[in-house]
């Protein structure tokens, strides 16, 4: 059975390498600032005790007050899973660093989030709409999208 990594332990690990980067945690999840995502990603991927080889899924949730990016990771060697979250405040011109440089699998998923949720990923190799056409007004998965 796959184990989900304990949030407190991972947060401690992150903070021991980069003080104050893990800002909050619960049993299974750890929260970081969006700007720290790539370096935290590299640590999670390269640390032999955490070893998260695969970026499984990226979701974005519009909580109106802020947007939350939810990254689900998986280690195939250790059969473990982990959830990393990042909150981005504001509604216009949201930018979050891309994780394509760390995990190639982020590419299409980040394009989808830009398309449907309107969060821009900096350093993405090909950030353009994917499911809707260029010029579509707005981002339909936002809570304030009017049909």
């Amino acid at each position, binding site marked *: *059975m*796959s184990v989900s990594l304990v949030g407190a332990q991972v947060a401690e690990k992150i903070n021991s390498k980069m003080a104050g980067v893990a800002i909050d945690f619960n049993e299974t999840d750890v929260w970081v600032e969006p700007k720290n995502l790539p370096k935290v990603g590299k640590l999670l991927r390269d640390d032999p005790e955490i070893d998260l*080889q*695969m*970026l*499984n*899924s990226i*979701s*974005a*949730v*519009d909580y109106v007050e802020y947007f939350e990016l*939810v990254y*689900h990771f998986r280690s*195939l060697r250790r*059969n473990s899973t982990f*959830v990393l979250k990042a909150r981005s405040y504001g509604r216009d011109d949201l930018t979050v660093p891309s994780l394509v440089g760390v*995990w*190639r*699998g*982020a*590419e*299409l*998923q980040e394009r*989808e989030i830009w398309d*449907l949720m309107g969060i821009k990923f900096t350093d993405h190799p090909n950030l353009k*709409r*994917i*499911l*809707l*056409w260029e010029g579509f007004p707005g981002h*339909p*998965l936002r809570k304030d999208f009017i049909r």
Partner: protein
Amino acid sequence: MPIKTEPVTINLGPQHPSTHGVFRLRVTFDGEMVLDAEPVVGYLHRGTEKLAEERNYVQVVTLTDRLDYVSAMTNNLAYVRTVERLGNIDVPERAKYLRVISAELNRIASHLVATGFLLDELGAFHTPLVYCFRERERILEMFEMLCGARITVSYMRPGGVLQDAPEDFWPRLDDFVKTMPGYIDELESLITENEIVLVRTRDIGIITAEQAIAGSLTGPVLRSTGVEWDLRKAEPHEVYDRVDFDIPIGSVGDTYDRYLVRVLEMRESVRIIKQCVEQISPGPIRTEGPFVIRPPVGDAYDCTESPKGELGFYIVSDGGISPYRMHIRAPSFINLTLLRELLVGWKLADLVVIFGSIDIVLGEVDR
């Protein structure tokens, strides 16, 4: 005098028989050689995730049927498991067995479609495809007995399944389990050692294990590279820990391995169904509860091994009657990440075969 040549960019699709739906590929060719390829998707986008925000948890089951429409049972399974995790809903034993039986039947049906169309693309026009569809038809008829629908089944519910299997379902299933291995032998005798198939698929479109893991590929595409990873073993849900089966893996990660892994998986699925039929016992098929589910505030992610790979649902609940947000981790969509690397350097005729061996369904890519 040298002949002046220049690269040509053409569109394959969205209306093209080998594109498995409405998929468009913008390809730049130098003669017959692929220089660049870019998938253009979205022609079937229906906004499933947004639609789910305005329906209650049971109604969303019908939306999941329409994701990977050749494998509706596993879509149902992944969704109801997430709702059960979110709302702490128990599932009776008999329902778990019925779920596994129907999901494995659907895996066979999906792999039959993948294999049949792959051969179609290799130029074996329609004969192998009709052989595959003949067997798939038997599975669809069994689905009709289970729930009245063949493709868009909506068979599973949070807390169990829609209804128990009718009496005359079981003899049909027994007959299927007995005859299916012989049918797979027949298919393999025609294809697996076929010289034309070998020449066209061996060492064509190779993915390495490192590439596959970094690119988040899952399912038969990942296993064909030699990575022994199957969520039915890694996260044994329902009754997968009580049945004995193997994970077929490939060695090279080429088109042929992807075909072979699917054929071997069909055999394993028959084994699983056989053991489930032996183990299943009478009992309730659904936990009684209100029709309108109100899970507590929170979020949950759960997944299952669909025929295409890891199908996951991430659902956020605000305590209301419908999901606040539902995200679908669609394996067909994410398996397209490495498409460009796979296609560049191959010829036009290989392009169609390599693309077919990834086995995507556009209902799931576009959602």
